[in-house]
């Protein structure tokens, strides 16, 4: 639309006054647009796309990075038991955490939506706090809550006769703790997204369902969930990517221990690539995140373009 209105105007200006060809080029819309997006393009090309391909190249080198060794790094990884442990743990970690975050976020969003509108702001503000605190800082608080000798949780639980729990010392409990902290950080995000979606469900639909005699469960199953399907899908996929690639929480809480039993891809890649200075092997480890991330990204894109067509 803008082009149509603008074309005669601009051509008149161009013929009216004589300008150098460089000046004309600078005035042309596509040139201006290109110059405006150029910094963005350079940034993405140099610091995102190039490193992504460079990682593939690095993964084919030997430890001193002087010799091409093809797929030897990958073969080496496949033979290591720790690698399969990391694969398993990453999947358990991401899937469990995302499911709990999604369910908890949904429940809390409903409760917040239930209460009178004037109190909602206050509750929403309070419940989003875990998402606002930098994860590295809040994980420190959890680390202190889980401390082996001074744990405040164990202190409280001892009154109920529940013995000291090795929150970060035992493999199963350490996995539980890491997932718990992740849920704590991520559930508020789901809550906020669902709350925004709940507000957009027309009230008439609930009235109609109530007249038809639907109970609260049927109202959720047949009205709320179908109306929110899009936002649930996109939030879950997005969270899956972020959780799968998580680093801060595991690194600070357990640093992969005890005995590599809580390592996930990112922390293990850091341990090998940076701390163990075997950059090619670290790059190979982190590349294993790509397939899952790619699948999630494809679904998100499909969803976004679908919604773009509807609008």
């Amino acid at each position: 639309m803008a082009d149509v209105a603008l074309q005669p105007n601009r051509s008149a200006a161009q013929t009216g006054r004589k300008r150098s060809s460089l000046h004309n080029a600078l005035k042309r819309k596509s040139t201006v647009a290109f110059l405006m997006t150029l910094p963005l393009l350079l940034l993405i090309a140099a610091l995102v796309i190039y490193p992504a391909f460079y990682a593939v190249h690095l993964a084919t080198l030997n430890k001193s990075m002087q010799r091409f060794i093809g797929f030897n790094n990958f073969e080496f990884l496949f033979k290591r038991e720790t690698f399969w442990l990391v694969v398993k743990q990453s999947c358990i970690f991401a899937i469990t955490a995302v499911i709990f975050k999604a369910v908890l976020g949904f429940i809390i969003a409903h409760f917040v939506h239930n209460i009178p509108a004037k109190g909602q702001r206050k509750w929403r503000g309070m419940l989003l706090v875990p998402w606002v605190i930098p994860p590295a800082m809040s994980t420190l608080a959890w680390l202190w809550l889980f401390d082996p000798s001074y744990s405040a949780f164990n202190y409280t639980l001892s009154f109920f006769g529940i013995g000291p729990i090795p929150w970060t010392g035992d493999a199963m409990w350490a996995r539980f703790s890491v997932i718990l902290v992740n849920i704590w950080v991520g559930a508020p995000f789901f809550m906020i997204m669902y709350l925004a979606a709940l507000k957009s469900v027309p009230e008439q639909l609930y009235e109609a369902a109530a007249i038809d005699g639907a109970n609260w469960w049927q109202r959720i199953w047949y009205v709320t969930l179908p109306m929110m399907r899009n936002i649930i899908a996109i939030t879950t996929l997005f969270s899956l990517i972020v959780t799968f690639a998580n680093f801060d929480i595991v690194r600070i809480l357990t640093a992969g221990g005890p005995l590599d039993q809580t390592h996930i891809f990112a922390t293990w890649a850091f341990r090998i690539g940076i701390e163990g200075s075997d950059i090619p092997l670290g790059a190979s480890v982190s590349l294993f995140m790509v397939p899952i991330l790619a699948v999630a990204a494809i679904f998100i894109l499909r969803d976004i373009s679908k919604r773009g067509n509807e609008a």
Partner: protein
Amino acid sequence: MTTATIDKAAPTRKVKYGSMSRDRAWALRWSYFFLVIFAIFFLTPPIYMFITSLKSSAEISAATNPWWVFHPTLENYAGLLTSNQFLRFFWNSAIVSIFVVTITMLISVPAAFALSRMRFWGSATLATGVFLTYLIPETLLFIPLFKMFAVIGDWTGIQLINKWYVLLILYPTLTVPFCTWIMIGYFASIPKELDEAAVIDGASWIQTLTRIFIPVAFPGIIAATIFAFTVSWAQFLYPLVFTTSTDQLVMPVGIITSLIKGDVFNWGQIMTGALLGAAPPLIIYAFLMDYYIAGLTAGATKG
């Protein structure tokens, strides 16, 4: 709520509506009950940080009731706020965040304007591509980037690793794609008539952007700024990988590497540091909550 429903009820069916409003009152009570439980779960760590920050190390090692402060003291705060090292972390974080926010806005606002308004060859694909880059996590890129900067250092002699300003190059990769994406959404919601009017009045594209789009989409700009600030303040992996000397560290990494000395954990100071590190995002959130939430939901609801 309850009185309103009863008032609306027809006199003959009072009993029926009465039971319905009683149901609703119970639903409300249960909602509050569960909200309180969730609020306790969500607020325990920050409150516990605060409690511990008021304790002396003697009180912590005495292992008295951890949920209560018997002898409140500000010595942890005094100790950290007079320590040059800690102030250095704070200063580094502040400088990095401010620069990154500026760089991000300078790159993403013009780009979002060009992508949403000045349709050119490939602009739609490019907008999708920007969103895709946002989905690439930093944990995938830190190893190749580390090697890249090491190689650049070898070739040109420009040492980037272990300097705080390397973060100014790295952080925009996390902030720019998302900020561009939400600004595209905000710009797209501005009616076409506005910029047509501007063009008819003889405004150039730059003028249309600075005089019309930036003022109209100001809430979006605030939301994007808050996002860029929070991300650069909270980022942990990049500074952990790329900076090691204590005078180059930013807040999150500084607290974790310098306050934890071997096996001796001075928890009072660590919690104070963590609380002070969490303070800037929390303060911004407290004052600009609506913008914060708008930015958060815009990423998925717009576009």
